[in-house]
Each structure stands twice: as structure tokens, then as C-alpha cells.
């Protein structure tokens, strides 16, 4: 499994998925014109990664997101859906969601997401 790294741009976050360390990170802001074009390769990578992952491996998924437009919000929800499904298939995953106290936005989006999830979800103040 190859590492997935996508450099951040003004309107897209940095993607840093390391399948050796099992640390996957999304960091930055997201408001591209077409979110699905940006996130589709990420969905595919994740589905492939969890298909090949042993159940005893511990995975940390880090979100450090300061702003999302509505179509990116849908894409992040889709990622959480993939994570939740993997968790239900006995993968050992935790989510660390980093937020800035001065930015209500990042806290609020996490709140919208986490209520339907069973997966361990840590809110971490930066």
C-alpha cells in the first residue's frame, strides 16, 4: 500500500495518509469548486487501505480542519462513514479531532458529525 500525500492549496487541505505508521491526517481548509473530484481518490485509497488492514493494527485518524464548505462537509461525512464501517468490521480506529478555541466552526462541524458515530472520537484543543 502506497502512502497518499496531497499538498495543501488555498482551497484544499493537506492529505497525509501513512499506511506504515497507520496515521492518517487531513489538515487545513476545504472549499474546492468540486469537492467530489478532490475527495474521490481519497475515498478509494481509504476503502482499499481498510480492505488490506489487519484487525490488530491501531489506526489514528487526525482531523485538523478550520473551515469546510457544504460540499466538503458531505465529503468528510463520507470519509467518516468509511471509518465507521471499518470500525464495525473490527478495525482498531480512533479519531482525533483538533480544534481551535477561537474558531467555533471546527468544533461545530465535529459536533454535527460525531453524534451518529460509535467509533472513539476525541476532541482535542490545540
Amino acid at each position, binding site marked *: 500500500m502506497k502512502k497518499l500525500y496531497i499538498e495543501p492549496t*488555498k*482551497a484544499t487541505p493537506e492529505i497525509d495518509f501513512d499506511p506504515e505508521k497507520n496515521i492518517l491526517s487531513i489538515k487545513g481548509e476545504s*472549499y*474546492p*469548486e*468540486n*469537492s*467530489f473530484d478532490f475527495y474521490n481518490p481519497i475515498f478509494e485509497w481509504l476503502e482499499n487501505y481498510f480492505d488490506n488492514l489487519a484487525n490488530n493494527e491501531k489506526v489514528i485518524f487526525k482531523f485538523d480542519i*478550520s*473551515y469546510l*464548505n*457544504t*460540499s466538503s*462537509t*458531505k465529503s468528510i*461525512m*463520507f470519509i467518516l*462513514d468509511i471509518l465507521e464501517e471499518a470500525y464495525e468490521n473490527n478495525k482498531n480506529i480512533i479519531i482525533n479531532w483538533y480544534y481551535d478555541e477561537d*474558531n*467555533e*466552526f471546527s468544533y461545530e462541524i465535529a459536533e*454535527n458529525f460525531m453524534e*451518529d458515530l460509535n467509533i472513539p472520537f476525541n476532541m482535542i484543543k490545540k
Partner: protein
Amino acid sequence: MYPKIILELKKKITESNVIMSFIGPFSQGIIEEIGRALREYMKNDKNLNTPSNNVFSVFIEQSQNIKNYERILTAEEKNHVFLESILLIGKSDHKYFISSGNIIKKEDMQSLKEYINKINSLSKDEIKLLYKKRLKETFKSKTGGAGLGFLEMAKRASEKFEYDFIKLDEKYYYFILIIKV
């Protein structure tokens, strides 16, 4: 066009409390640049009384809505003389406003009007609930939709949406939307 009109226009724009204005077809690059300038402006605003992301979010959703709508128009419709969209960002009475105008086909007007009226009739809590519900219903469709964008803007807005549809000809209307944050 005569030189003096430039100053007259500038005066008119400034008197309307407009900080930034753009007329023309939107591109993602233009949206990003205006967004950057808007954030820079808010950083220096000592009387900013709302989180800057609230203003930024309304700006992004409103301009991307217009951009997405432009995308569904046919080449012929795009060449229409009234295509130009306008976006004005300003501040008056301690509130930011994001005002836009863009062409809309007559057949799309009714459903949009009903949707905005529906949103305007809801309380903040009802909007938040509806947003969550919509988000969960639609995320699997994978496509962007203006529906969630309007709800997001309503969440951030401090007043009800002001809007108008001005008839341009038999087929097209100009859709004006003013959102205060």
C-alpha cells in the same frame, strides 16, 4: 464611457457601504482571491462582532451557488446578454452583508422562491435541525447541491434573507439575494 463616470461609480459604491465588488462570470480562482481579501479586511476590522468564518462561509456558499448555477446553463444561455453576475460585500450598521445578483431561468424561479420563503419562516434551531437532517440524507448522493448551501447561509445569517426576482425578458430573471451576518 466618460472618465468622470468612474469617480461617480466609485462614490455610489462607497456610499452604499460596499467594501468589495465584482461583476462578471465567477471562477474558483476569483472566489478564492475575493475570499482572501475579505479575510484580510476582517483581520483589520476592530469592530468585528461575528466570527470571521461566519462571514466567509456565507460568501463561499453564495458565490459557489452562483458558480454551480452558471455551470448548468447551456452554451447558448451562457452567451445571454444578462449573464453577468454581481457580488457586493460590505458593512453597514455593524453587520457584514453579502449581496449577489445572477441570472436565473424562469422555470427555476418558483422552486427557489418557495425554498427561500421556507427557510425564512424557520427559527435558528429549526434551521440547524433541518441542516443536520439534510446533511445525513444527501451525503451519499456525492453531488453538491444548493439546498445545503442555503441552510448553511441561514445558520450564519443574523437576519432573514432579502431577495427579489427582477424580470429581464420572457425567459430570464435576475435573482438578487442579500444576506446579513
